[in-house]
């Protein structure tokens, strides 16, 4: 699950050419049988997001929006039940959920006096039945359920997975008899930055080939693959901030990470793809 940069690049390269569909994912699995489904999915999703970020702007010009809206209108006039919006998104290589949002916004602008607020739109996307137009509601629904990278459904899944791993981690900590403060407790105490867990008594993690162990004060769980982009963002927004306050700690990327990113061990940020087994705790007989 821990990939070298070269291995990772190979996968990422492969993803450039395929559309973001479940079929593509299956193909990817065949191409890289040794990698776990979850890892591939996570990389797949990250690569796709990068792709969307790059092309985001071009779908948001008013001309583009107008043209998509017209095509949508024309399409549903012909056949309201056909996946017009989904096909359109796939055709122009844009995420279906985002396409649905785009069209929904355009639609509401036309039909309401005041421009719709973000929260109204989010809520309609989460529950398309709130959309005043039945046909559009159906189209939006199709987009959302068929999008494997964006949209409220995916967010929900991601959140659930993230939470699941935090729970798993908590169980492991309890099982190891390590006492900790979790995010909520920290927040209640007024901490300005809150990792998932702060160990009340630090431990040392021994790494197989390393000579020295690493002191761990905090643990952050990430239910995703650690690629350069996301890792650097996390470092800046979270990991270094934790280090600045609580000292060295551990990040678990449950779906693996690029090996080369684990370069701040000496500084105090250790990366792992699972809960480490070789832990040394403060002994009960020190002397």
């Amino acid at each position, binding site marked *: 699950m821990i990939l070298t940069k070269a291995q990772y690049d190979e996968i990422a390269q492969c993803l450039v050419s395929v559309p973001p569909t479940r079929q593509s994912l299956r193909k990817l699995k065949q191409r890289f049988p040794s990698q776990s489904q979850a890892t591939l999915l996570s990389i797949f999703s990250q690569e796709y997001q990068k792709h969307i970020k790059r092309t985001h702007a071009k779908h948001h010009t008013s001309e583009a929006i107008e043209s998509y809206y017209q095509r949508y209108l024309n399409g549903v006039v012909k056949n309201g039940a056909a996946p017009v919006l989904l096909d359109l998104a796939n055709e122009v290589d844009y995420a279906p959920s985002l396409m649905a949002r785009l069209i929904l916004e355009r639609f509401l602008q036309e039909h309401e006096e005041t421009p719709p607020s973000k929260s109204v739109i989010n809520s309609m996307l989460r529950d398309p039945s709130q959309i005043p137009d039945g046909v559009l509601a159906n189209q939006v629904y199709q987009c959302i359920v068929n999008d494997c990278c964006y949209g409220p459904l995916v967010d929900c899944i991601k959140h659930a997975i993230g939470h699941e791993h935090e729970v798993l981690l908590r169980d492991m900590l309890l099982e190891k008899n390590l006492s900790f403060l979790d995010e909520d407790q920290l927040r209640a105490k007024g901490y*300005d930055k809150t990792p998932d867990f702060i160990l009340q008594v630090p431990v040392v993690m021994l790494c197989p080939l390393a000579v020295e162990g690493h002191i761990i004060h905090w643990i952050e769980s990430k239910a995703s693959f650690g690629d350069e982009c996301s890792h650097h963002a996390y470092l800046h927004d979270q990991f270094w901030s934790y280090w600045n*306050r609580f*000292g060295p700690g551990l990040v678990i990327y449950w779906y693996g990470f690029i090996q080369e990113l684990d370069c701040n061990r000496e500084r105090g940020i250790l990366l792992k793809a699972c809960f480490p087994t070789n832990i040394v705790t403060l002994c009960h007989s020190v002397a």
Partner: protein
Amino acid sequence: MAAVLESLLREEVSVAAVVRWIACSTQGSKDNPGEAAALSSLQPLRKEFVPFLLNFLREQSSRVLPQGPPTPAKAPGASTALPGRPGGPPRGSRGARSQLFPPTEALSTAAESPVARRGGRRRVPGPVRERGGRSLEEGVSGESLPGAGSRRLRGSGSPCRPSLTVSDPPNLSNLEEFPPVGSVPPGPTGRTKPSRRINPTPVSEERSLSKPKTCFTSPPISCVPSSQPSALDTRPWGLGLPPGCRSLQEEREMLRKERSKQLQQSPTPTCPTPELGSPLPSRTGGLTDEPADPARVSSRQRLELVALVYSSCIAENLVPNLFLELFFVFQLLTARRMMTAKDNDFELSPGALDNLESPLFQSIHDCVFFAVQVLECHFQVLSNLDKGTLKLLAENERLLCFSPALQGRLRAAYEGSVAKVSLVMPPSAQAVSFQPETDNRANFSTDRAFHTFKKQRDVFYEVLREWEDHHEEPGWDFEKGLGSRIRAMMGQLSAACSHSHFVRLFQKQLLQMCQSPGGAGGTVLGEAPDVLSMLGADKLGRLWRLQERLVTPQSSGGPCPPPTFPGCQGFFRDFILSASSFQFNQHLMDSLSLKIRELNGLALPQHEPSDEDGESDVDWQGERRQFAVVLLSLRLLAKFLGFVAFLPYRGPEPPPTGELQDSILALRSQVPPVLDVRTLLQQGLQARRAVLTVPWLVEFLSFADHVVPLLDYYRGIFTLLLRLHRSLVLSQDNEGKMCFLNKLLLLAVLGWLFQIPTVPEDLFFLEEGPSDAFEMDTVAPEHGLDSVPVVDQQLLYTCCPYIGELRKLLALWVSGSSGRSGGFVRKITPTTTTTTTSSSLGTQPPQTSQGLQAQLAQAFFHNQPPSLRRTVEFVAERIGSNCVKHIKATLVADLVRQAESLLQEQLLTQGEEVGDPAQLLEILYSRLCPHGAQALALGREFCQRKSPGAVRALLPEETPAAVLSSAENIAVGLATEKACAWLSANITALIRREVKAAVSRTLRAQGPEPAARGERRGCSGA
């Protein structure tokens, strides 16, 4: 002035009289009116005697140590002949020193005979100060040589070139000085090489202390890269090279040619091109070492006399800097060869011995003789130097040759010396931990302030990390790299309360990163002595020592380096400079002042005069460590306070004079001091806490600008310091006053302060002698800190790394003289690999895990409130101490009872022939002492039983269970370690002592008549 010296030499006056005369303004010599008369006529010159003597010695030695001030005949008209001090602070205020001495003045005195009148204000520090650091460290100072930059030969670009005085550049093309390797040097007098150099005598007997493969204290690698090159590099050691090194020699030869070519083509602007081929003084790193022979000393009596006067001046603290003088003497001891320049004008006329016309040092023999004479007088100081220096001294063959007795004493001192001194700063770039009590939202006025500070903390560490990564890269510049980001961050600090938060963070981080005393760092002050070292993290210590030897430590620039910001301190200095924020500086000064007051006033646990026996030793190490931590923190804080406080007044320009000075004085004298240091000093002296107060005050003052010493307020401080300095006579062992090492530390730091360029030269010599006025007349506490041996060697060397220059000097000598020139590098490798694999880096579980446990304990406290740590350490301290008391009351008392009954048996069975008491005792010892082994087990059990309850009682109820149990365990561990360490070292002695006391009690009680035995038996058993 010379008249005094001359009349001394003529034996008209005694040395004692002269010293009395110098030291006291009152007419001293009552016993010999003749002497008094001879001297009283010279009374007006009294103050100038010491400067004269010091200058005289330096001038006299200039032929041996030619890198010193030029001798008259040799550098006529060298207008740049006044070398500045080596090294300097980055902003160039340093150069001022040499400017203070108009070249003409120095030269005129020098150009005439040494007897020349020293009219006007000719002062000593010129040569004296210049001598500082001259020979060893010049290359080190790097960019910071504004005033003296001219001495460096930057042109040819080789990093390892000897740096030289302008008047004395190496003439690389001069074949006489730098002959082709392997050729016989055309020694000016046709001197043959000493045979020792030709026949390789690998390790002489006198060097038996060296085990080249394993010794840890021999010439440190730290000498090699920065400081040694000056002598090592160009010195053609090739004389001793085995034939196999031909090609190397050839290469060197080519290099030399190439260099001399470059030198001729591109003379650097700062360095006057040496006149090629002109006879220039040769340098210390000469070709051969002249052997020194006691039999060839030219005028023993004269040398003895001068040495005695000189030693007395040193002993009486009439010289500004003890260690500078020692350095000078060491230089004489290790002088390689006398320059036989063309000045044969010093014809030795018969009868010239009693005047100063003839040179004092006519040969190496004279120099060494003189040096050894002086050293003999200062054995006590020498014996307190670090083990490495002692070893080198004890192994110095010249010393052996000239004074086997001194050598023997030094050897004994070496063997008795325990501590190895390591100056390494362990890496501890831990962040200041977030403590909800001080850092959470409730401590900020608005949400915005809270979130701004959150970001600032992150930016601060980001900047710090970037600095760590880059500051050693050649082209990297702090201001360019980080300046704008720092200012942007400072700009966000709008609320005053945010400033104080940030300053607190800054100061804590400063203490955390920079104050660590050779121990495990990371301690925030006032909060704790070092747990890691208490846990016996010997391994880590060793690892750091190793690291110290592998990476060059920040080199101190000679025996009197300017104040610098080594290592991480540089980050904080540059941060302050880049931030250039008035608000920040003000808050920082407030905060530093407060912390200084707090630490300075800390009631350091006073060493109670040991109750009947030595178990208070148990508390001993801890106290000493705590003192060291507090002292080092104070010094660090005071240094930064001084830096910030005087920042607006310091500049590269020379000190103001005349009217300008007056107006500046008028302006400055009404500015209140940033911290009332004078009062703190007075209080410190009164409370006999000088050993704590003075070292940090010195750090503070070392950053003062030129005007400061002229201000009444600070002049008062200097006067106090000068009096203190004079009163610290090392040889006086006045009961209950000040311990030797305490004095030595104060002398070292004060001596260093007196050499700081901004401190006026005349300050030291013009200040009226204190006579015996420095009596702290007030009711001094019975046992002030001064009388407690709080300073140890480690602390001395940590505070005054420049003392290590002495060792470097000796090491340099060894490297050049004993035929193991390559030893520096060679020795290191095997030593390090073996020690590390076997101890610190090894993967053997027991050792590693011990280190890990120590690390964990240290880390454990990091995120806990400081009070937790204090509590645990307090408990450990008390329980450990009680444990020893308990063992004494139980185990030892039992054994004593056994001894008594055994004795009774013995007496009964043997009747009257009790026999030899000593023998009897031995029998008892051999039966009882083995039981002492139980002490450890009992002690362990005691600590295990007692500590947890105490911790539980003292910590808050709400302490999480895991934290509580960890705290208990650490307390148990610490207490056990403390107790067991003491017990294992002392239990046998304790038992012996107690048994002996009991036996003699019994025997005494027994009386002469055996009749009384029966009754007494019962008594003694009770």
